[in-house]
C-alpha cells in the first residue's frame, strides 16, 4: 500500500531478500523515429558479473544511460534492490541514483577529473559521507573532530583502492598525466569509492594491452568476490567476457537475442548470426528449417 506521503521512487518492505539486484522490465528507448532499445528485459544478480554484448549500435550504452539517469526511458521499469529496499531508477535524478540507490558507472571514453590528483579523484567520490560529517562545510571549515575523522576514513578507503590498483606511489599525480591503463583502473576504483551495490562498466578493456587486460580481469573478480556487488559489463573483448562473466546478455538492433551462461551463448546460432552474418551454405537450425518449409509450402 503506497501512502500519499511515500516517496514514489522508493518502496520498502514486502521484498524478498533473494529478489535480483537489478530487474529491467520491458525497457524501451526511442529517440524520435529511432528505436534504440526495443522491449528489453533482463536481470542481474549480486556477486555476479553480467556481461552485455552485441554488435556496434545494438543499444548497450543506451541501456547504461537509462540505468544511470542520463536518459529517461520511453517505457519500462528499472528496479534496483538494495538490501530489501526497491529503487525505481527510471524515476530518479542522476545524482540520486548514485547517492541513494548506489549505482556507479564508468565510461567508454575515460572521464576522470584530469586536473585533480589521483587521491582527490577517489576522495571526491566519497563526498556525500564527508558533506554529512562536515555539516555542509561549516564544521569542516573549523576543523572539527568528527569531520577530520570522516576525512581520514575517506583517505583510508582511497588508499585501500590505490593499493588494489598499484597506484599508491602516484597518489599525488594529476589524474590526467597517468598512463592510459592506469586511468582505466583509477576510474573503476573511483566508482568503487562511491560504495556501489551495482557497478556498470562501459568497455573497461578497450585499448588495454593483453597484460593490462589480465590485470583488469583480476580486479573485476576481486570486486565481485570480496565486495559481493553486482557488476554489469559492456565489452567487445570476448576473451574478457568469456573468461570472467557469469551471465551474458546479447543485444542486437535494440532487442535481446540471447541470455544465459557464457558457454551457451557462445554456441547460440542467433548470436553467431548477429556477429558474423548468415552463411549461405550453413545448415539452418531444424525448427527454423521446418518453419521455412511450411511457409514456402514446398514451392521452392
Amino acid at each position, binding site marked *: 500500500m503506497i501512502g500519499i506521503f511515500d516517496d514514489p521512487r522508493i518502496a520498502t518492505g514486502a521484498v524478498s531478500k533473494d529478489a535480483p539486484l537489478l530487474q529491467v522490465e520491458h525497457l524501451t528507448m526511442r529517440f524520435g523515429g529511432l528505436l534504440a532499445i526495443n522491449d528489453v528485459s533482463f536481470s542481474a544478480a549480486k556477486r555476479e558479473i553480467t556481461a552485455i554484448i552485441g554488435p556496434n549500435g545494438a543499444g548497450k550504452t543506451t541501456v547504461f544511460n537509462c540505468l544511470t539517469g542520463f536518459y529517461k526511458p520511453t517505457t519500462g521499469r528499472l528496479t534496483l534492490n538494495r538490501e530489501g529496499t526497491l529503487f525505481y531508477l527510471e524515476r530518479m535524478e542522476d545524482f540520486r541514483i548514485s*547517492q541513494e540507490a548506489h549505482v556507479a558507472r564508468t565510461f567508454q571514453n575515460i*572521464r576522470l577529473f584530469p586536473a*585533480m590528483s589521483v587521491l582527490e579523484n577517489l576522495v*571526491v*567520490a566519497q*563526498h556525500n559521507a564527508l*558533506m554529512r560529517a*562536515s555539516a*555542509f562545510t561549516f564544521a569542516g571549515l573549523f576543523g572539527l573532530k568528527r569531520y577530520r575523522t570522516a576525512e581520514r576514513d575517506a583517505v583510508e578507503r582511497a588508499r585501500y583502492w590505490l593499493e588494489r590498483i598499484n597506484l599508491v606511489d602516484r597518489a599525488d599525480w594529476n589524474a590526467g598525466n597517468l598512463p592510459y591503463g592506469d586511468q582505466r583502473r583509477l576510474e573503476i576504483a573511483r566508482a568503487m569509492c562511491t560504495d556501489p551495490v551495482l557497478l556498470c562498466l562501459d568497455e573497461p578493456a578497450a585499448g588495454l594491452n593483453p597484460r593490462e587486460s589480465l590485470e583488469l580481469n583480476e580486479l573485476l573478480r576481486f570486486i565481485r568476490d570480496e565486495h559481493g556487488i553486482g557488476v554489469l559489463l559492456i565489452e567487445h573483448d570476448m576473451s574478457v567476457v568469456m573468461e570472467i562473466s557469469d551471465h551474458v546478455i546479447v543485444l542486437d538492433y535494440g532487442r535481446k537475442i540471447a541470455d544465459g551462461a557464457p558457454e551457451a551463448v557462445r554456441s547460440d546460432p542467433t548470436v553467431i548470426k548477429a556477429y558474423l552474418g548468415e552463411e549461405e551454405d550453413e545448415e539452418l537450425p531444424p525448427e527454423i528449417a521446418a518453419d521455412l518449409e511450411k511457409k514456402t509450402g514446398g514451392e521452392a
Partner: protein
Amino acid sequence: MEYFVQQLINGVTLGSIYGLIAIGYTMVYGIIGMINFAHGDVFMIGAFIALISLLILGSLGLTFIPLALLIVLIVSMLMASVYGWTVERVAYRPLRGSFRLAPLISAIGMSIFLQNYVQIAQGARVKPIQPVVNGGIVVMESPSFIVTLSYMQILIVLTTLVLMAGFSYLIARTALGRQQRACEQDRRMASLLGINVDRTISLTFVMGAALAAVAGMMFVLYYGVIDFFIGFLAGVKAFTAAVLGGIGSMPGAMLGGLLIGLIETFWSAYFSIEYKDVAAFSILVLVLIFLPTGLLGKPEIEKV
C-alpha cells in the same frame, strides 16, 4: 616619493574591493562557464544592505563600532547571499541546457531589474553616510605632503586578506571545494558520483554574492556615498580584473583586482582623473588581444 606611496596605499585599497567582486565572477565562470552579469548589482545591493543595517544599528543606540561593523558584515553577507541564490534560481537554473546566450540575456535582465528595484525602493538620489571609522596612521612625512594610512584602509585590506585566505582554503581543502572543482571539470561525471550539481552551482553563486556584499560594505564605508548605479561600473571593472587575471582562476582574480585598482589610482594621480575608466578598460582590450587567457589563466586545450 610621498605622493607615490600615498597612491600605492589608495590603489591597494581599491584593488582589494575589486578583487573581492572579481572572485564572484571567476567562481561562477569556472563552474558554469558563463558570466554572471547581475553580480555587480548584487554588490550594489550588499552596499545598500550594509548602509541600512548600519543606520538601524545606529538608531538602536549601538555605539561600539567594531561590534556594529561585525553585525553589519554578517547581515549584509547573509542577505546578499539570498539575492545571489535567487539570481541563480530565477535567471540561470530554468535555462540550464538551453543555448548559451539565453542565460546571458536573462542575467542582464536580472541586473536591470535589480537596479530599478533599488531605484524605486530607495530613491535615485545618492545616499551619504557619516564616516564610521575615523583616523589613521601617518606613515611618512615631508614638508609638503603627509602620507596617511587610514584605519579604514587597513580594515579593508585586512578583511580582504582574511576572506581570500579563507575561501582559498575552502576551495582547496574542504569537501565542498572538491565538489566545486569536480563540477568545474566534468559536471555530468560529478553528478554520476552522487554530487548534487544544482546545489553546488547555487552555493557557488551564494559564495560569490557573500564576497560581493563584503566589497559593497567596504565601498560604502570607504567612499561614504552610494546610489543604485554603483554596481554597473564596479561590476564591469571587477569583470575586467577577472579577465586580466585569467577568468576561472581564484588567485588570478585577486591579482587582477589589485592591478586594476593600482592602474586606476595611478592614472588618476599622474594623468587625468576624467580618463581613469578609459585606462582600466584599455587594459582589458590589451589583455584580450595579447594574452587572451589572462595572467594566471590556463590556455584551453582544444581536443581534436
